[in-house]
């Protein structure tokens, strides 16, 4: 429900990074989204499309890379996936687990096209 704000943060982060890449146009933005990030990728995609329209990022594609929800056990050391939202260790059943992935929400990479490549295309 706050995807519009997140889309604005995304646009700002990408534009900041682009400052050091003059003459480049963004073709795609890769975003890592954890299984338990609490974000709807459809809503984020839609918010991005609307908000980016008036920026140099207009037309860029969002590519979502899903990150599975995993816990590491502090008792037996095994890392296991969280199944049916049960956050106990999948190997020994211990309650002493810590989330090691699945909460990510970050821009990872940008696919850039040089403006000259665009002109020739």
């Amino acid at each position: 429900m706050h995807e519009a704000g997140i889309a604005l943060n995304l646009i700002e982060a990408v534009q900041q990074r682009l400052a050091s890449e003059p003459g480049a146009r963004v073709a795609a933005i890769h975003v890592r989204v954890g299984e338990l990030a609490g974000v709807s990728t459809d809503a984020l995609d839609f918010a991005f499309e609307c908000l980016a329209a008036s920026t140099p990022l207009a037309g860029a594609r969002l590519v979502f890379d899903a990150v599975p929800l995993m816990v590491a056990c502090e008792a037996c050391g095994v890392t296991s996936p969280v199944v049916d939202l049960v956050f106990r260790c999948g190997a020994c059943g211990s309650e002493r687990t810590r989330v090691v992935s699945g909460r990510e929400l970050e821009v990872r990479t940008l696919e850039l096209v040089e403006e000259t490549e665009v002109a020739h295309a």
Partner: protein
Amino acid sequence: MHEIDVKSGLLAPNDAVARENRHLLAERGMYAVNLMSAPGSGKTSLLERVLPMLAAGHRVGVIEGDIVGSCDKDRLDRFGGPVHQINTGAACHLDARMVHHVLHHLAEDGCEVAVIENVGNLVCPAEFDLGEDDAVMLLSVTEGHDKPKKYPLMFRRADLVVINKVDLLAHTDFSLAAATAAVHDVHPGVPILAVSCRTGEGVAEVGTWLERRIASKRAAPVAVPAGRLR
């Protein structure tokens, strides 16, 4: 065509201010608790019961988050400490920036404890770290015992889960055992207290839990916890 790295967290702007809030709290030896639940679970009713207990030993300030209006603030003004209203306009949650300047006010005002009542919502507030020491969440009997598995982030986030309206247990199909099991699936080991803000049953335990947390913060005031990834 080429690819470049960015590695930028999309909640980073909020997390940065949350870190500042955490530092402010550590510096002033202030304790802050973020109270969250669905609308109508009894956050304000719980505060009406618990604030007088906390205020007996500390100077307590309250931050009231609501989309519009000041009904909750008007109820809590009676307890005597400072109550600041934040109206979010349309936003469905408080974020770190919204509470930042109010935390400063409360610190200047000599408050040792800040109680933040978030906007009633089980979804968005869970995503926004305010820099608080503890998150307390309320689940009420009338909402049903399946909620932990439907809103896992919120239950993960909680340092204490309070089940309110237990005076209504006999009139509903709510199972305390099923609720406890679901909470502990999502967040193994998190403490759960059953209360009725209407009759007062169990609310003293919530006050005791908070007093213990306030005391342990005062015993180790400079520890700045990392937060997130729960």
